[in-house]
């Protein structure tokens, strides 16, 4: 395979320097890779990329832009404009590769780190910021973008995705063969979520009902301070076998491979052939959130190791070598990224606070006497404040 950090350790069940669970590398543990960290295309016995040069360039632009989005949001948090931010740095390929494999009719349930997937679904970055600034819990139209809002409770949405996919099956939106009709649902979560009961129950329900759902686990090797070895003694993808669904490990920093394995899993789901677990092996280059301090639990050697396996750099080398990525395109892209950053800097500060009285809205379908009374209390307090 030649993928550093993914070779087996002689200490079965122990963790290598890069946090990878070792043991015998059987077929189930192999890592699908189509673009290596030097920017060279790699043959895989099972997967081929269907992406043409224009598509590859488009993925590259996506990754550059969401990295800019991530850097800007992190800066805005540091400036006190956001209450919190969960950086995606290092996970651009996993999110863009999988996110661009989706069809418009598919539906996504994601965690608080999938800004790149939300980007692929057409969510405005300023809407993403509403959540982190604390102006709205679910700041975009989930039905329009077909991605539900950020889920903070670890793993809870794996069940929602499974139920949604069960709904698609009941509604006959699976296995018809019509390209724009068959629907898949994707649940994004991390390595830590693999320990949650809800994720494991989701695997049980998904296989029991052959739900058209894809479980996309970004194993970034750290659940805040807990390494993957605290979650599993075997590679995460191997867990799938015990539940009776295909499990695939993919190089999460290889956008081409992430796109290929997700496309195949989505096709399988839409065709009515059931769920898939994808483990995208990647690395969280930044902190868990802006409140986290990884220097308390990581010594920096892994950061150095993974900095040479950057998901954007390798595609850049490939596109440069192909002559697809020119200086002109690079400078246009830099200008686009700059404009995005500027829009976020200005826009974040202009996001309106909700009205205090809006806290009483949408608790129930209809009016509620107790809430109406409390709303009147707050109205009175606000009125006093204006007088004072």
């Amino acid at each position, binding site marked *: 395979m030649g993928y550093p950090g993914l070779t087996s350790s002689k200490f079965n069940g122990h963790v290598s320097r890069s946090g990878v669970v070792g043991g015998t590398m059987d077929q189930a543990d192999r890592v699908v890779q189509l673009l290596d960290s030097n920017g060279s295309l790699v043959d895989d016995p099972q997967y081929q990329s269907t992406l043409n040069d224009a598509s590859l360039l488009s993925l590259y632009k996506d990754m550059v832009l969401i990295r800019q989005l991530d850097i800007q949001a992190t800066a805005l948090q540091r400036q006190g404009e956001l209450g919190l931010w969960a950086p995606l740095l290092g996970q651009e390929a996993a999110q863009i590769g999988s996110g661009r494999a989706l069809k418009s009719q598919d539906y996504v349930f994601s965690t608080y780190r999938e800004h790149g997937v939300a980007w692929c679904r057409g969510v405005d970055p300023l809407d993403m910021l509403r959540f982190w600034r604390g102006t*709205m*819990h*679910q700041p975009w*139209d*989930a*039905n329009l973008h077909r991605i*539900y*809002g950020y889920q903070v*409770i670890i793993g*809870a949405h*794996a*069940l*929602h*995705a*499974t*139920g*949604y*996919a*069960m*709904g*698609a099956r*009941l*509604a006959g939106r699976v296995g018809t063969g019509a390209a724009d009709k068959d629907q898949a*649902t994707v649940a994004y979560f991390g390595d830590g979520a693999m320990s949650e*009961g*809800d994720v494991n*129950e*989701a695997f*049980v*329900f998904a296989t*029991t009902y052959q739900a058209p759902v894809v479980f996309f686990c970004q194993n970034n090797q750290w659940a805040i301070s807990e390494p993957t070895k605290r979650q599993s003694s075997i590679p995460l993808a191997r867990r799938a076998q015990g539940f009776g669904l295909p499990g695939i490990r993919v190089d999460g920093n290889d956008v081409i491979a992430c796109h290929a394995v997700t496309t195949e899993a989505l096709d399988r789901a839409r065709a009515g052939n059931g769920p898939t677990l994808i483990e995208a092996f990647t690395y969280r280059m930044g902190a868990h959130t802006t409140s986290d301090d990884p220097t308390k639990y990581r010594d920096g050697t892994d950061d150095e190791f993974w900095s040479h396996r950057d998901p954007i750099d390798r595609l850049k080398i490939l596109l440069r070598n192909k002559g697809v990525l020119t200086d002109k395109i690079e400078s246009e892209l830099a200008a686009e990224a700059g404009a995005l950053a500027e829009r976020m800097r200005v826009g974040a500060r202009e996001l309106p606070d909700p009205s205090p009285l809006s806290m009483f*809205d*949408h*608790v*129930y*379908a*209809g009016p*509620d*006497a*107790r809430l109406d009374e409390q709303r009147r209390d707050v109205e009175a307090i606000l009125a006093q404040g204006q007088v004072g």
Partner: protein
Amino acid sequence: MSQLTLIGAINQGLRRAMESDSKVLLMGEDIGKLGGVFRATEGLQKDFGEDRVIDTPLAESGIVGTAIGLALYGYRPVVEIQFDGFVYPAFDQIVVQLARMRYRSAGALYLPITIRMPYGGGIGSVEHHSESPEAYFASTPGLRVITCADPADAYWMIQQAIASDDPVIFLEPKRRYYQKAEIDTRAELADVPTMYKARVALEGSDCTVISYGPTVATSLQAARMAAEDGVSLEVIDLRSLSPLDLPTIIESVKKTGRAVVVHEASSSGGVGGEIGLCLMQSCFYYLHAPVLRVTGYDTPYPPSRIEDDYLPDADRILDAVEKTMKY
């Protein structure tokens, strides 16, 4: 008119809800061929098929979590939790996910899910089969918490709960499952009084006994005994624990000047405390005596051989009534 047991009324109510809305699905453990451990869903899978009466894996969080996904897809799931004591693995899905969907999406998404649950003790069963967890749910914004006390209410209120666009925790008093009554099932659902309105189960003048679910029958028994001693009790069946129908309670207590709240659940942090404080706020000058509670004790549910000492009975209710009368 049909004569139905309370469990039979639930069964017929579910059937009618499924007939009137093809989006209604039933989900739960053992609800298909077996018809549920209490037979609430008997015959429904045979008539509506395995896609609408779904036998699920044994995972309560999984059942509620997938019901949420199905509801987002446009279905109207009715979940059976087999016993009160089995609901806790689904707690996050209920109080964090289900209860908040409408709020967190600012009204864009909603979850018309009903969670049915047999609850309460008095059936001589083993641990975890006799609990009264209603206070957890009643104190959770976004949930509606409903409980029926007789077959007619069971028949209509389960249909109202399913038709509700809010998530409803629907608590069924399992020790009253075989109580029978005549029900006029020909009425239209829209013409039946809302489940959110409390019911004056017995009119009286000396003291108001406020109860719900399994202890409504106990309160009515106490009222009959009190009447023999010349004391007139008004018995209110709350029916809805969230929202509470305070106007009905307040009107009654302003009339009688005395109130005793009765429930099986523990005293501390319970519905009784909430009602007592609301009455103090609204009826302070009308009260002749402090509001009292007759409840289960602040212990875990005891072994069943001593549950009769734990559960509120007519004698304990009458003792409380006497205290308020003599205050």
